[in-house]
């Protein structure tokens, strides 16, 4: 009897188990598609959650800012960049043939113009040499640490991220060429961004106008310091400065050097608009037009080394310019000694300049407008008012 009850219970359990299985099977088969979708989305959400804290904490062997180059990213880049390099190489060869053999019309005239430009720049360099030498002496006196660019690596842009939400470019140089993450990248026009992930023969350039990018900047004339950030629409803004009447549209913006990425004094762009930032009151949204054309970059320079001392080549240039400046000064002294009339004429000319440009006597080119003589002088005319020393308290009008 007991055995019979046991068998009956076992049978019931088996039936329940079978019914349960059937129900589960029908559930899974019915919602199979949705369950797969949920599982995949959930897996990726967990993957996001795993990646994001890592990028903040930065544990383990990683980039300069603590980011890990994941194997997945390495594979994706390794798959795409050879093709990008091949496409770029082919188009470069075509352009090379065109520019070197077909499009040489006018090269002679251009060469002559460039020779004249070089001569003019040499004269300017000699003129600036003395100011630069004085600046260096003052910096040395104040123990000011200036960062000079000592080495750069030229690289070509071979591809993009393919998304306007991610302003990343791919360069044809990598860690094998001495590139490291967080190195500043510039063109002759100005800074363009910094290196992000660096692979053996490729590197990611994060442009300044990417929303995750930024730079410490200073306004050239007012010397106000700010933080430049990229926006979702591809523009660049400084939005940590409060309203200030000294900030004007058209003012140049240069790097401040405070971010430890970009050396100080490199051109960044020009202020194009100033408006209250509705999202960050009481700060202003100062829009910057980049100095370099970020949408059409072909070749860039990666700054691979900086030093507090002037580079050797620059020191030699400075010495040559100093010598040229001293020679010019000696020649001027010699002319003044041999031909006093010429020196007098120059002095008169200088005096004329002071009066014609305007300004305070004795202060060359002070910038003040020249006071024109009155057509009908009266007591209000310049020079008609007696000096304060001659005035007596209580004395009436004379």
């Amino acid at each position, binding site marked *: 009897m007991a055995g019979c009850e046991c068998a009956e219970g076992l049978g019931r359990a088996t039936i329940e188990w079978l019914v349960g299985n059937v129900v589960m099977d029908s559930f899974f088969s019915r919602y199979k598609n949705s369950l797969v979708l949920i599982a995949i*989305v959930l897996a990726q959400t967990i993957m996001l959650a795993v990646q994001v804290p890592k990028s903040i904490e930065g544990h383990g062997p990683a980039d300069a800012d603590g980011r890990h180059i994941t194997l997945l990213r390495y594979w*994706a880049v390794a798959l795409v960049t050879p093709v990008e390099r091949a496409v*770029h190489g082919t188009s470069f060869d075509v352009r090379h043939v065109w520019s070197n053999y077909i499009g040489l019309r006018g090269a002679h005239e251009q060469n002559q113009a460039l020779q004249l430009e070089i001569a003019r720049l040499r004269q300017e360099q000699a003129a600036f040499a003395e100011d630069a030498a004085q600046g260096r002496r003052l910096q040395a006196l104040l123990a000011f640490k200036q960062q000079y660019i000592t080495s750069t690596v030229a690289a070509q842009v071979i591809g993009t*991220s393919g*998304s306007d939400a991610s302003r990343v470019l*791919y360069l044809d140089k990598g860690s094998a060429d001495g590139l490291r993450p967080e190195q500043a990248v510039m063109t002759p026009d100005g800074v363009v961004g910094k290196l*992000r992930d660096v692979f053996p023969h490729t590197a990611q350039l994060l442009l300044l106008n990417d929303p995750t990018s930024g730079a410490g900047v200073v306004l050239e004339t007012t010397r106000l310091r700010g933080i430049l950030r990229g926006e*979702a629409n591809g523009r660049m803004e400084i939005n940590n400065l409060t309203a200030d009447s000294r900030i004007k549209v058209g003012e140049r913006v240069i790097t401040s050097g405070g971010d430890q990425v970009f050396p100080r004094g490199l051109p960044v762009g020009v202020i194009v608009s100033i408006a209250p930032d509705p999202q960050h009151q009481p700060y202003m949204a100062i829009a910057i037009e980049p100095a370099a054309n970020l949408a059409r970059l072909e070749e860039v320079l990666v700054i691979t080394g900086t030093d507090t001392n002037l580079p050797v080549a620059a020191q030699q240039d400075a010495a040559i310019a100093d010598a040229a400046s001293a020679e010019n000064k000696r020649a001027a002294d010699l002319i003044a000694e041999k031909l006093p009339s010429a020196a007098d004429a120059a002095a008169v000319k200088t005096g004329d300049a002071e009066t014609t440009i305007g300004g305070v006597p004795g202060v060359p080119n002070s910038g003040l407008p020249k006071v024109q003589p009155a057509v009908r002088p009266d007591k209000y005319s310049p020079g008609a008012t007696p000096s304060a020393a001659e005035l007596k308290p209580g004395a009436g009008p004379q």
Partner: protein
Amino acid sequence: MVMAEHSYTSRREIDQYAFHTAVTLLVPLACVLLQAVLPKTFPGLAILDLPLIVVIFFAVARRNPIAGTVTGTLIGLFQDGLTNHPFGVNGIAKGIIGFAAASIGFAVDVENVINRVALNFGFSLIQSGLLYLITRWLLGDPTVRLLPLHELLRAGCNAAVSVPLFFLLDRFKSRE
């Protein structure tokens, strides 16, 4: 019989298509490559999303939600690999688009050009919304902003490009 002829989902419409393995692998790869190379010469083309069009095409042609989800996820993850975003941003968005496109493929005549344009326009907008939600709320990035006009323009461009691209990819279809 009459009902069958006038049914919204006729036999022709619910035909499922298959693709050669090489096509399945090379077409998305070519689209991601084009997407990465073209904006270098023509910066304005960064507004396009060729991989999205490919995801929609494969999903509506196969009419299999699981295949659509997997295809969308893999293409999205590949795209993420080239950006500075964490892996999964495009993966999640394109996975959901693949699922939805395959599900809609049962109900809509996807051979019709107008339907194709509407599908691409709509899914492009949905993807923009999904990307905004993922980056703004899942990743907690407060700098992300939704630019409605820009996204409408992107959807329009994707819809316009999808017509010739769908016709081109139709050549690789084979009936299951």
